[in-house]
């Protein structure tokens, strides 16, 4: 059992909203007057524990009652939508801001990377910036000196090292900045979304470095990211924050699953009670449309492996017509992925049902919507039901350590053979 290196207890952070500064002098005086002279309660700060206070105007609980522990050598991913308190949490653990209540205790040296290029100055050369940034991030002089060549090599900007950073391209700047950060050797490393910058190639390099660091003995990482794939692969555990409240703290795959499921915006089912209010025309009226994902018990999100069944029922209002149904799938950008036509059916007045299934491992990740079309005598269109269903397909890559966007409209799993035919060293 590894020892606990970070312990967060009942952590809460309250922020005042609006213009702080002007007017606060008056408020401060008023507060002093009320507290010390009149002996009343502070009108501007009511102690924590009174959760209903969050509804009060002018204040917001950026974090509420956060509790968790991190063991030595663990990598913890922190996920949540914007404004959920992730950065505030990291700032508190990095000793930059103070919590309102609660405490954080820990062991070992902490380094935090809350931005790329902390302390970088545009006017100074790369060399100077490496030193300043290194010291600011908590490296000793000997450490910077020892790693100096390594840092330059990692950044790949040897020839520009004595040029002022202002003349660097933004890519070079980011590479140098990350190179410094990547060579930190703290016991606990705190990283805030710094990987969101840079091109795909650079991100890959950074994630690779993070992976290397997290594998290293006794290195603990706290890592905020919007890249679920990275959290899944790099982190042992994940913490999900939602509007300052802890929603889950568990195995990273389980947390990511829950978090992504909460984000997916679906229109998976529409039902109408009577033909009068149902969409349609004098030929057909839809009773229900429905998308049924075939989820297994380990997951409640639709990812690229999930087979999807589209089922619909409609009232046929005419006697004895030959109808074809079409299922047209569009990507969110409006590109048609496929247009699937049913066989023709000689229909009588009354309810008609149909369904078709998109197999798993066929669609790429992304957002999709479905249009149903009805045609008569396999040629004359009589009704189009646009955007009747909408869904999102989440990414899944298993052990593949490529983190960039997978391209293509579809991602089918066709048989693919790769084998070694001959084993010999090439000449030369």
């Amino acid at each position, binding site marked *: 059992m590894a020892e606990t290196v970070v312990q967060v207890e009942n952590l809460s952070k309250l922020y005042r909203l609006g213009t702080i500064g002007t007017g606060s002098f008056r408020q401060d005086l008023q507060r002093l007057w009320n507290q010390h002279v009149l002996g009343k309660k502070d009108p501007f700060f009511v102690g924590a524990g009174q959760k209903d206070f969050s509804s009060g105007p002018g204040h917001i609980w950026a974090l509420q009652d956060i509790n968790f522990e991190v063991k030595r050598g663990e990598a913890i991913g922190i996920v949540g939508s914007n404004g959920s308190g992730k950065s505030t949490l990291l700032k508190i653990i990095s000793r930059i*801001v103070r*919590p309102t209540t609660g405490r954080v205790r*820990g*062991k070992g040296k*902490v380094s935090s990377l809350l931005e790329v290029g*902390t302390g970088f100055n545009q*006017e100074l050369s790369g060399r100077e910036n490496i*030193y300043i940034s290194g*010291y600011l991030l908590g490296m000793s002089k000997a450490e910077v000196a020892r790693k100096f060549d390594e840092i330059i090599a990692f950044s790949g900007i040897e020839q520009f090292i004595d040029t002022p950073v202002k003349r660097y391209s933004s890519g070079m700047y980011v590479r140098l900045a990350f190179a410094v950060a990547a060579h930190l050797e703290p016991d606990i490393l705190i990283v805030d979304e710094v990987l969101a910058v840079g091109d795909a190639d650079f991100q890959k390099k950074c994630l690779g470095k993070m992976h290397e660091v997290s594998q290293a003995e006794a290195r603990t990482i706290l890592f905020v990211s919007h890249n679920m794939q990275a959290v899944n692969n790099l982190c042992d555990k994940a913490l999900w924050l939602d509007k300052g409240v802890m929603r889950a703290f568990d195995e990273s795959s389980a947390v990511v699953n829950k978090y992504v499921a909460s984000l997916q915006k679906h229109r998976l089912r529409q039902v109408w009670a009577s033909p009068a209010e149902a969409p349609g025309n004098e030929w057909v009226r839809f009773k229900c449309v429905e998308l049924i994902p075939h989820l297994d018990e380990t997951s409640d999100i639709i990812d690229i492996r999930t087979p999807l069944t589209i089922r619909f029922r409609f009232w046929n209002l005419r006697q004895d017509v030959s109808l074809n149904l079409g299922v047209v799938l569009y990507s969110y950008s409006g590109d048609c992925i496929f247009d699937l036509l049913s066989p023709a059916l000689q229909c009588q007045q009354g309810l008609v049902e149909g369904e078709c299934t998109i197999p798993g491992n066929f669609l790429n990740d992304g957002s999709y919507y479905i249009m149903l079309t009805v045609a008569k005598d396999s040629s004359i269109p009589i009704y189009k039901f646009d955007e009747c269903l909408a869904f999102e397909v989440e990414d899944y890559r298993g052990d593949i350590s490529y983190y960039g966007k997978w391209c293509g409209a579809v991602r089918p799993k066709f048989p693919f053979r790769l084998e070694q035919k001959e084993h010999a060293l090439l000449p030369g």
Partner: protein
Amino acid sequence: MSEVTSKWNWEITGQTSYWGASLQELWSYRHLLGALVKRDFLLRYQQTVLGPFWGLFPPIMTLVTYVLVFGKFVGIPTDTLPPVLFYFAGIILWSFFNNSFSGTSAIFRDNIHLFSKVYFPRLVMPASVISTHFSTFLIQLFLMLLLIAYYALFQGLSLPVSAHLLWFPVAVATTAALALGLGLLFSVITAKYRDMGHLVSLGVRLLMYVTPVIYPLSSVPEKVRWVVQLNPLTPLFEAFRLSLLGEGTLTGAQVLYSIGFAGVVLVVAMLLFNKQGDKLIDVV
């Protein structure tokens, strides 16, 4: 291992301490201090032809102005000293105080981008500001010594080398302490109440006129002299001139008053800075 498990290296709570960072921690950031001073120097003089000699330009221009305006037109007496030496001594010590104080009092405003992104003992920043201005002061002092040598060699200025030289480190160190103390105090106040920032720059300008920068204390009429003497900077400027030029009006009690004043301000300011510093990040 159970004993180790129960021990924590650090703890972060809503309570801030008056003591701030430990000396050991400050010491571990000494290289940062050096790098920051170097940075300030490079930033100021990089890509200039004259480099650090630009540090001499403002005091020389001020000197010319003072000699013309106060010396020639207004005719303020400078005791028996040549006006050039008299004014220059006042100017360099005043600019050291003024720059250190103004720089330190703007510490939160100028460095919020750093303070909000990375932790380091916040005292390193004001220390680097004072060190930067101190090195500029040393360059100016070098010119001062050249001027003294010129007057001694060619103008027949007599410079009795005496025990008065011992006042020099006292005057400079106390001035630095006072600038740092007041600067820290006002850095906290101005970060919280922006209005004070404007008052501070005005206040410093007025303070110069109750400090013997352009006039010797001995020329102040007896009736209002107590106003000037209330200013803890006064004995320091007199002691500074006494040590370098051999003329100044001061008593041991006055110097003790200055040292005591600077000491109290510095201690109070440091405690306040430690206590409030971390909280201020939320409001700057």
